[in-house]
Each structure stands twice: as structure tokens, then as C-alpha cells.
């Protein structure tokens, strides 16, 4: 490629992949290398699976049931029609209300009659048309509307707004709102989700001495190191907490031996990295900020820390670095840089001093570092450092060990030669470089260790505790190593000291299998004991027994998933209230989610923030993306996106709970609403010689699900709340209603259908008997049926509404009034058959008495059952509602505010 006449070669290092951010340059000249189906983006895009909520899946099975019911009704109608035709076969010609005989064309022929078989078919088809309301197509539309409304409220909820990133809750999928109320498993990423992914330098152990910034009295004082250069002030962008003692030591010079160690330590921190310092102008021309940019947040934290202690990295080019050490600018040649790779788990840099001496600085994970450290030297210091590292990681800090080695000239030349050869070789460059690195990273003398805090996000421990109380199993899937994961587990209260832990970490199949089986046995024993006592309580939930935790690492997981040990793993994991999976690859995350999804009917939720969580987010029933630091891939793949992990609690406990309760009720209500109407039509058909005459005006039939009854169910579906936010947050156990599917299940469906049958019988037969043998015409009795069914279904809804806001009132009573108006309007159109019927009918006392009788008699059983259930078999929601009401009454009466649900937290 030619730019300005110069030839440039493009290699793999020039490739900018998707998701990269352009930095340190103002412009870029781009060439598209490939943009077909096999780009990284396309390959990763496994096609977001279309998700359907569980409620909807269940609902669909019920709809199939309703379809069978519909077919049955049609069959009954058509068979009866055929039987009737057969019985009256001989009379049909002259039957005054049938008159098959047609002589108008001059000869005798049948008018619209093709034998009972065909007539039966026609009747069947016609009845499908008449009864098709049975399948609530409008339900799908109202469900969508309700979900939009629910999404609106979720987005508008100020509890879900994140101040820090200025981001609102995002509802990216509209069809799984109600799944939020049924979650049983939460799969969470660690970094960036539980933690902030903001690294903070916390402690240093230098030459066996522990300098913990946290332990100093001036713990919160953040010292800002600044530097005067040519009349300008340079200072690092981030402030770091420092240890005063250490700061004093660094300021006192490096002459003595301790000082030398400290000097080397911070030099290593400042030099051994791939950070690029960027000088940013501020509004004050004399002040410049130095922003350290690099790929690893750990390195950034270390560099900032070094800067705070006076070792400020000012410039980095490919050949040298400039470090300002307490006002003194020093230039080091960077002779070689062995980048971090996951096999070595360390990186090193070789600096050439101005006096032609060479030093190798290494930093890396403790395990890998202790293997290259010269154990014969300074054993006590190594031991001291090791204990420090232990104590650091036990409080959840990420540790790195720093080492140094002086290279003499011959060693350097040897290395240099090998390095040059390796870095210019065309094949196997990476492997050669690694070999060179391993060769030189040897006999390292320990300098010390650093500890970086991966800060937990705000409210994470509390959230996790709430989730656990709600019976949600929290699984943490992380790429971190086991110790870190466990320490984060403790700090986030995921793990508690009372838990039985099973750790599975092994490197071969057999031991893996053995471990797993041992753990399973143990867990069974653990379960068996408390379950005896629990048996009579009727609760088999494992919450009451000693909680167990499973900690498993990626390699073991590979063996287990390969090895048909899935069943055992799942069995074990199901008993554990906490599962920590460490060192797992992104794809394994998805594998674990699908393992759970395959084996249980329970709902799963995955939450994560990075690109490595995308597969997991897509796999889970509900994917939640954290719009955090690691780009937007997770958000793009998610169904819901929010700013912080702790928002999960209000999202699930409040919105999830409400959405589920609302939608569950709405589906049942819609089934009922349409079925009761169809049944009334059906009963009437039995009295019309099975000919599908509808007493209810066609217009009214059409408007029934559009105007007469549509609005209240949508309003209730959006606005009704069974419990207040506070109660729901205070009592996470209430979330169990969704997990146990209390708002929508087969039993409720059949109960509702039984109720439907009764109500339709009352609505139909009361007018039938009251008007039997009277002069009533079709339109009048049809109007009575229309009005009574509409008022009935609206009253039915009104009976179940929990919170009456003015909107609810307006919609329900408005619908009733609208129905009266519509029926009246239909009856003043002279061309329609029912002309003036409503005025005639409504002028009689019989009409109104029928209406009143129907309403009371139809709702009576439901009312009784509802009351008996609520009063004698109250569920948690009902009791909590009463508590709320009681508390409110007390407040209104001016009594002291009683502590709500003071014993709601059982003693542990």
C-alpha cells in the first residue's frame, strides 16, 4: 500500500478488529481486509436465539387445549345439526322456517341444501367462524401492549438508573418481561459485574515488609503527586491511596539498601508494562494530566501507583522509556519485552541503564513467579512475601509478584542474540519468543508483591444475600483463578463460613470423577439429615439444611462435561446453594448455562458485562447485560441492560414479580373472557336448531374484544400491583411465588375454566328461563346477553384488581359505559335488525332484574372461593398485603409506625 509515495507493508499487527477503540492518533487510513460471512463478528454471532417466555410457552399449550375445546364445540354443533336435519328430513321442504323447496325458477329444486353430510360440513365451518373468539388472538396483541407498558415502567424506574454511567435501564427484548419473575438460577460473571473492573492499588510487600495502605490511619487521604516540568505541572489522572510510611521512605532517597529495593520495586512497576502514557491538556494551560492507557486495568493501577510514589512514567516509545523519578528524568532503553501470555502467566522487560548495565524485571502470578525465583536466596523474604500474598488474597485482592535479575554482559548478549533471532523468524515466532523468555526469566531475585483490589460494585453483597433469600441460586462463572474467585466469593457474601465447600480441581479424568462422586456422597449425607426433620413441613427445599458450595475449575469442568459426568455434576450443583466456576472459557460459561437449562424446567438468568459473556447471555432464558467498562457486546446480546449488578434485585423482586403476576392473571382472564362469550353463543345455538344464529349482534361480537373488554385488562396488566415495592424488597421470599408458578398454572387454568362454564350458564340461562314463552325478540334478548356478559367480565376483573387507581376506575367503568353507548348506537341504526330493541327492553323491570341477578349469581362462586382461599388458606402474598394494609391503617391512625414484618428474618 502506498501512502504519500511511501510503500508500507501491512501485517497482522495492523489489523483493527471490531470493537477496537482508536486511541493516540487523530486519523486512520483503513482498508477492509475481509467483510464476508467469516468475519469474527459474524462467526461469533451465533444468531441470537429467539426467546419466548415460559409463561407464553405454557399459555400456548393451554391455547392448544382451547383449540381442542373449540373443535369439540364445533363438532357438537355440526353433529347435532346433522341429526336435526335427518329427523326433519321429510318436513324440510315446507317447514316454514326452513323451506327447502324453491319453485321460483319454475321447477322444483332445493334451495341451498346439499344433503345432511355437506350441511354438516358447512355447519362445522360456520361454527369455527362463530366460535373462533375462543382462541384469544387479541390476547397476543394485548400481551404485547402490556409488555410495552411494563417495559416503559422498568425504563422509567429511577431505582434502575445508574448515576455513574448515566445510563437508564434498557429493555431490549419485549417478550420475556414476565420471565424476570420466575428466575431460579442466576449466572453471573465476576469481573465488571460483581466487581467494578476498576483496579485499585492497595498493598505492597517490598522485600518482605508489608506496606498496606489500608492499615494506615490516613487511609482515605489520596496523595497526588505532581511534577513541575518547564513551568508546567504534570500529574497523573487518577489518584491513588498511598501508604505514608512508604511514601516517606521513597522521599528519603534510595541510598541505603532498603531504599534501593524500593527503588527497584517501583521502577519495575513503572517499567514492566505495556502502558502508554498520554498527556492531556486541561483547561488550566499550566496543568497537564497524564493518562495511562493500556490493555490491562491491573497494569494501569500499578503504573498509577508507581506515579503516586514518584516514579512517573512519562514517555514510552518502542525503544526507550522516560521515567521521572522524584523530579529527575531518567531514560531507560527497553531492550526487550516479553509480553504476558497465559502459559507463563508473567511478563518481563529488559532495561538497559545508562551505565550499560542490564536488568530484567519480571512480574507475574504468584504460582508462576515462585517457580522462577531463586529459592536459595533470601528464603525468609520469600516466605514473608508468600504469607503476605496469602493474606492479601484472602481479603479478595489480586496479587502479583515482582522480581528482578541483574544480567551481566554475556548473559545479555546471549539473550539478545536469541531474542533477535526469535523476533525475526518467520515461522513459530511466538513459540520461539516464549522459549527465549523462559530461558531468561530464571534465577529471579524477589523484590516484592503487589495487591490490587478489584473493587466490588456497590451493594453487591446485599444483593447476593437477597437473591439467596429469595431462593435463587447464584452461580459465579469467572475466568479468574480459584483463590481469587473464592475470596471474591467471601467478600460478596456468596460464600459464608458456615458452608460446606466442595472443591473440585484436578488435572485428570479419574481423579475428577472420584472427587465428584465423593462430593456427591457427602452432599447426600448432608441433605439426608435435615430432611427428616423437614419432611413434615412439606418443604423439601434445601435452604434449611447446611448450605453447600461447589467450587470447580475450568479444566475439571472440561473433563466432566466430556465424560458423561454431567448428571452427577448437575445433581451436586443442584444441592448446592452456591456454585463457583473458576477459570472457565466463554464457551464453557454457555455450556454450564445450557447444562442447567437442559436438566431443569427452572428459569435461568445470566448477567455479564463483557464480550466473553455474550454466549452465556444468549444461552440463558434471560440475559442481562451490564453496560460497564468492557464495551457494548454484552449489552447488544442481552435482553435487558442496566448499569449495576445491584439493580438485579429491584428488577427481579419488583418488576419481575409484578410483571409475572400481572401477565399470569391477564392470560387467565383473557381465556375466561373469550370462553365465556363463546359459550354463551354456543348455548344459544342449542336453541336455534343448531344453526349458529347469534342473538348477540355481529357488531357487538366484534367490538367485544376491541372496545367492551379490551382496555381494562391492558390497564390492569400494566398497572396493577399486588404488593408495594418496599414489601417486595424487604421480603425476598415473596419472589418464590413466581418460581412456584403461582400466578399461572394448570390448576388455575382449569379452575378458571370451571368458573367460566358456570358464569356462561348463568348469563345464558337466566334470561332464557325468564323470557321463555314470552314475546321477546332476538335483538332484545341479545342486548341483554351482551350487556350482562360485558358487565360481568368487567366486574370479574374489578373483583380481582388489587390496586384501584383512578386509571383503573376510569378504564373499567368507562368500558361498561362505552358498552352501553355502543349497544345504544347499534340499536338506533334502522337498517339493523335490532332497531330500538335496547330501548324497548330496557324499559322493562324484567331486563334490569335479569341483569342484576345474573351478575350476582355468576360472581357468587368465584367470590366465595376467593374469600375462602384468602382467609383460610392465605398465601404469602395475601398475608403481606394484609400486613401492608394494617401498617398503613396504623400510620393513618397516628400510631407509632410498627416495624413491618419484624420476624420476617428467621433466626439463622
Amino acid at each position, binding site marked *: 500500500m502506498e501512502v504519500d509515495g511511501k510503500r508500507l507493508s501491512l501485517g497482522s499487527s495492523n489489523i483493527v478488529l471490531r470493537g477496537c477503540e482508536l486511541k493516540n492518533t487523530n486519523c486512520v487510513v483503513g482498508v477492509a481486509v475481509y467483510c464476508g460471512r467469516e468475519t469474527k463478528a459474524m462467526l461469533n454471532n451465533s444468531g441470537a436465539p429467539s426467546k419466548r417466555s415460559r409463561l407464553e410457552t405454557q399459555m400456548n399449550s393451554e391455547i392448544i387445549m382451547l383449540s381442542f375445546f373449540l373443535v369439540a364445540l364445533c363438532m357438537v354443533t355440526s353433529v347435532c345439526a346433522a341429526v336435526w336435519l335427518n329427523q326433519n328430513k321429510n318436513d324440510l321442504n*315446507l*317447514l*316454514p*322456517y*326452513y*323451506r327447502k323447496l*324453491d*319453485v*321460483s325458477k319454475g321447477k322444483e329444486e332445493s334451495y341451498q341444501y346439499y344433503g345432511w353430510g355437506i350441511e354438516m360440513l358447512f355447519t362445522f365451518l360456520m361454527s369455527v367462524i362463530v366460535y373462533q373468539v375462543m382462541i384469544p388472538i387479541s390476547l397476543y396483541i394485548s400481551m404485547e401492549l402490556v409488555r410495552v407498558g411494563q417495559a416503559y415502567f422498568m425504563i*422509567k*424506574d429511577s431505582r434502575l438508573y445508574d448515576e455513574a454511567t*448515566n*445510563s437508564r435501564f434498557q429493555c431490549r427484548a419485549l417478550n420475556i418481561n414476565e420471565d424476570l419473575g420466575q428466575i431460579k438460577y442466576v449466572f453471573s460473571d465476576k469481573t465488571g459485574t460483581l466487581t467494578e473492573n476498576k483496579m485499585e492499588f492497595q498493598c505492597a510487600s517490598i522485600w518482605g515488609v508489608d506496606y498496606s495502605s489500608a492499615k494506615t490511619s490516613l487511609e482515605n487521604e489520596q496523595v497526588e503527586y505532581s511534577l513541575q516540568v518547564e513551568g508546567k505541572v504534570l500529574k497523573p489522572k487518577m489518584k491513588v491511596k498511598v501508604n505514608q510510611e512508604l511514601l516517606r521512605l521513597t522521599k528519603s532517597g534510595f541510598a541505603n539498601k532498603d531504599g534501593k529495593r524500593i527503588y527497584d520495586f517501583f521502577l519495575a512497576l513503572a517499567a514492566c508494562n505495556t502502558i502508554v502514557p498520554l498527556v492531556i491538556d486541561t483547561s488550566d494551560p499550566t496543568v497537564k494530566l497524564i493518562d495511562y492507557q493500556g490493555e490491562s486495568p491491573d497494569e494501569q493501577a500499578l503504573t498509577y501507583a508507581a506515579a503516586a510514589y514518584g516514579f512517573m512514567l512519562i514517555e514510552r516509545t518502542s525503544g526507550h522509556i522516560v521515567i521521572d523519578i522524584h523530579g529527575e528524568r531518567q531514560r531507560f532503553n527497553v531492550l526487550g519485552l516479553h509480553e504476558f501470555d497465559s502459559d507463563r502467566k508473567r511478563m518481563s522487560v529488559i532495561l538497559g541503564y545508562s551505565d550499560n548495565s542490564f536488568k530484567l524485571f519480571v512480574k507475574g502470578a504468584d504460582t508462576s513467579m515462585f517457580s522462577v525465583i531463586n529459592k536459595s536466596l533470601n528464603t525468609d523474604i520469600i516466605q514473608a512475601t508468600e504469607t503476605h500474598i496469602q493474606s492479601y488474597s484472602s481479603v479478595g485482592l489480586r496479587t502479583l509478584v515482582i522480581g528482578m535479575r541483574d544480567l551481566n554482559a554475556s548473559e545479555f548478549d546471549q539473550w539478545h542474540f536469541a531474542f533477535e533471532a526469535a523476533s525475526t523468524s518467520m515461522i513459530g515466532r511466538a513459540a520461539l519468543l516464549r522459549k527465549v523468555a523462559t530461558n531468561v526469566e530464571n534465577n529471579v531475585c524477589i523484590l516484592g508483591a503487589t495487591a490490587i483490589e478489584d473493587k466490588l460494585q456497590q451493594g453487591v453483597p446485599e444483593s447476593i444475600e437477597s437473591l439467596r433469600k429469595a431462593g435463587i441460586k447464584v452461580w459465579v462463572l469467572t475466568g479468574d483463578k480459584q483463590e481469587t474467585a473464592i475470596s471474591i466469593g467471601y467478600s460478596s457474601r456468596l460464600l459464608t463460613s458456615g458452608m460446606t465447600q466442595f472443591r473440585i480441581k484436578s488435572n485428570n479424568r479419574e481423579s475428577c470423577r472420584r472427587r465428584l462422586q465423593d462430593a456427591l456422597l457427602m452432599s447426600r449425607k448432608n441433605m439426608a439429615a435435615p430432611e427428616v*426433620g423437614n419432611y413434615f*413441613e412439606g*418443604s423439601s427445599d434445601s435452604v*434449611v439444611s447446611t448450605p453447600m458450595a461447589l467450587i470447580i475449575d475450568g479444566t475439571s469442568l472440561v473433563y466432566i462435561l466430556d465424560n458423561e459426568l454431567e448428571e452427577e455434576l448437575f445433581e451436586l450443583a443442584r444441592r448446592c446453594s452456591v456454585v463457583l466456576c473458576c477459570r472457565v472459557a466463554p464457551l464453557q460459561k454457555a455450556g454450564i448455562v445450557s447444562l442447567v437449562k437442559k436438566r431443569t424446567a427452572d428459569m435461568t438468568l445470566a448477567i455479564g458485562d463483557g464480550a466473553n459473556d455474550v454466549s452465556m447471555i444468549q444461552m440463558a432464558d434471560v440475559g442481562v447485560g451490564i453496560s460497564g467498562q468492557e464495551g457494548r457486546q454484552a449489552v447488544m446480546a442481552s435482553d435487558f441492560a442496566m448499569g449495576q449488578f445491584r439493580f438485579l434485585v429491584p428488577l427481579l423482586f419488583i418488576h419481575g414479580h409484578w410483571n409475572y403476576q400481572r401477565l399470569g392473571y391477564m392470560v387467565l382472564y383473557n381465556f375466561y373472557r373469550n370462553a365465556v362469550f363463546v359459550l354463551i353463543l354456543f348455548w344459544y345455538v342449542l336453541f*336455534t*336448531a343448531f*344453526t349458529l*344464529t347469534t*342473538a348477540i349482534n355481529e357488531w357487538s361480537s366484534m367490538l367485544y374484544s376491541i372496545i367492551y373488554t379490551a382496555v381494562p385488562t391492558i390497564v390492569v396488566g400494566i398497572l396493577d400491583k399486588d404488593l408495594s*415495592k418496599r414489601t417486595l424488597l424487604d421480603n425476598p*421470599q415473596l419472589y418464590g411465588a413466581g418460581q412456584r408458578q403461582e400466578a399461572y398454572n394448570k390448576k388455575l387454568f382449569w379452575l378458571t375454566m370451571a368458573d367460566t362454564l358456570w358464569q356462561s350458564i348463568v348469563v345464558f340461562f*337466566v334470561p*332464557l328461563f*325468564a*323470557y*321463555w*314463552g*314470552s*314475546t*321477546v*325478540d*332476538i335483538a332484545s334478548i341479545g342486548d341483554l346477553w351482551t350487556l350482562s356478559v360485558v358487565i360481568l367480565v368487567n366486574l370479574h376483573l374489578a373483583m380481582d384488581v*388489587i390496586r*384501584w387507581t383512578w386509571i383503573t376506575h376510569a378504564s373499567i367503568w368507562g368500558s361498561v359505559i362505552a358498552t352501553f353507548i355502543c349497544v345504544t348506537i347499534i340499536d338506533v341504526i334502522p*337498517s339493523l*335488525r335490532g*332497531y330500538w330493541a335496547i*330501548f324497548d327492553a330496557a324499559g322493562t*323491570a324484567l331486563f334490569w*332484574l335479569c341483569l342484576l*341477578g345474573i351478575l*350476582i349469581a355468576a360472581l*357468587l362462586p368465584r*367470590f366465595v372461593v376467593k*374469600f375462602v382461599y*384468602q*382467609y*383460610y388458606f392465605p398465601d*404469602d402474598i395475601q*398475608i403481606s*398485603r394484609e400486613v*401492608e*394494609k*394494617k401498617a398503613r391503617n396504623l400510620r393513618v391512625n397516628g400510631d407509632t409506625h410498627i416495624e413491618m414484618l419484624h*420476624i*420476617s428474618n*428467621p433466626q439463622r
Partner: protein
Amino acid sequence: MATNSAGSNDPTVNRRQTKRPKYSKFTQQELPACKPILTPQAVISAFLIVTAIFIPIGVASLIASRDVVEIVDRYEAACVPSNWTDKIAYIQSGADKTCKRELHVEKRMKSPIYVYYQLDNFYQNHRRYVKSRNDEQLRDAGKGNSTSGCDPESNVDGVPIVPCGLIAWSMFNDTYSFSRNNNNVTVNKKGISWKSDRDHKFGSDVFPKNFQNGTIKGGASLNETIPLSQQEDLIVWMRTAALPTFRKLYGKIEVDLEKGDVINVVLQNNYNTYSFSGKKKLVLSTTSWLGGKNDFLGIAYLSVGGLSFFLAMAFAIVYFVKPRQLGDPSYLSWNRNAAGQ
């Protein structure tokens, strides 16, 4: 320093508007609301109120229904002379159809006394039947030719029928005349149909045309000099009945009938219900505020009222025997479990 850094941030803050959702009671779902709870007291009193309303209404309805005096005379079988064994042949024949009946008044009947004919097993709500009419033609003289939907009774030899369709064709044509002690009792046949029908549905300038001229005669003929809006029997007949057993108003007797009176009825038994074994009844009935004689509503109200009284009592007893304190957190499932341990 601090001011400087704040200064540098200010423009960015202004540029990037905060996305914090605006607080309102609506968006935070905190609208003031009434949250009624079914307390036993409320439920019991609701049932008592229902009882208090339904029992009196039930009693009143029953009394009203019992007050109605009704004479029903089924005549379709008795009005076939015994020498005709084939009833259908009789009704289709040209023989004299006059039939004499005697009605005994068991109880004083106050005017107005409504005269109905009642047909049983006649499906005026048959889908084929209810559609077989053309409302435009009935209303508008200019639309006399529109006979759509009227087949097979839309025209005779290509000439449209007014009123067309099966409903009009099958119009009831038995006639009744009443006498008491050899004095004629007049039957007022004016105003038996709905005023709205006369005014708007049946045109005052539409005259019957070509009616019952076909080969098959279905029922009554119409006087072609009288406009449809005054053919009240037709108007009544064309308001199709909702149920297979129905009455239609024939006329009103505007004198009181005393107890023990014998009413002689001379009727023309023209209408063919024999082919579908339908019953024909002549009904004389007074009326009450609730309509005709029908005990159903009274009984229904009494039983609902009684049931709710029973429920109120049952709930009251259970409430006193085994009350549950509302809103007692110890009933919560997790507290119950904790207590059980």
C-alpha cells in the same frame, strides 16, 4: 486545582444531558390507590346486603307473577275435525277451518287483557329464516326491487315480492274472535307492534305487492291497499322471536273479564304447524310490572338471596369459631417453617 478540574468537566456535563428518569408518581408506579381487602366483616355484610336486596325482590316478583291471570288454550289438535286422520292433509285442504273453543275465566282479569298466540317448537331464530328478509325493501318504496337475501321467496315469475323472504311468507294466519254471553268482545289490534318499527322500519308508502302469489302459500295474505307500516300483524311477526317457544301479540281486549265468564272463541285454524308437530296455543293474559306469568325470576332471586344468607351465617360462625388475624406475619410460609424447626 479542584476548581480547575470542575471547570473542565462543566461543559461536558452540560452537553451530555442526564438521562435520569423524571420522577412522577405515575412513572414510579406510586399513584395513590385504594387497596381493598376482603375482610370477613366486609364479606359477611356483603352477603347480608345481597340477602336484603334479593329476598324482597324475589318475593315481589313471585307475587307479581302469581297475580297475573293467564288462560292458555292449546287448540291445534282439537281443531282438526275427527274425521280427518291426516292433519297435514286437512290443513292443506280447502275445507272449512272454523273452530269453536270455550275459555273459562277462573279469576277476574283486569283490562288490558293481552291476546297472544303461542307457537311451540317453531324456530323463528333459525339462521336460514332470520336472514330471509330485506329491510331496505320494507322501508323504502323506491327499493321495492331489492330482494337480495329473500330467496327462495324473492319473486314470482320474475316479479319481486313485497315483502319478500321467508319470514313474511310464513306469517301466522289464524284468526280469533271472542264473544261473552253472545256479546262480541272486541279485540283492539292497533298498537300491538313497536312504534319504532312502524315509524322507521316499515314504510308508510310501501304496499304489499305480489305477496303470496307463488305456488306454495306459506301463511297470511296482506291487503295490498294498506301500507306496511299499518300491517301490524306483519310487523309483530317480523320481529323474530328469540326462542323456539314464543308468543306474539294478537291484540288487546280492553274490557275486564269477570270470574266465571265463559269466553267463546271462534277461530280460523289456518296455520300449518302440523308438518313439524308444533303446538298452537291461544293465550289471554293480564300483565304485571314484571311482564307475564313466570315464576322463574322470583324463585331465582329467592334462592340466591337464601344462599347468600346461608353463606353469611356460615362465614360468621366460622369467623367466630376459628378466626385468623389478618396480616399476622407468623403465617408467612418461611416464618412457619422457621417456627417448625
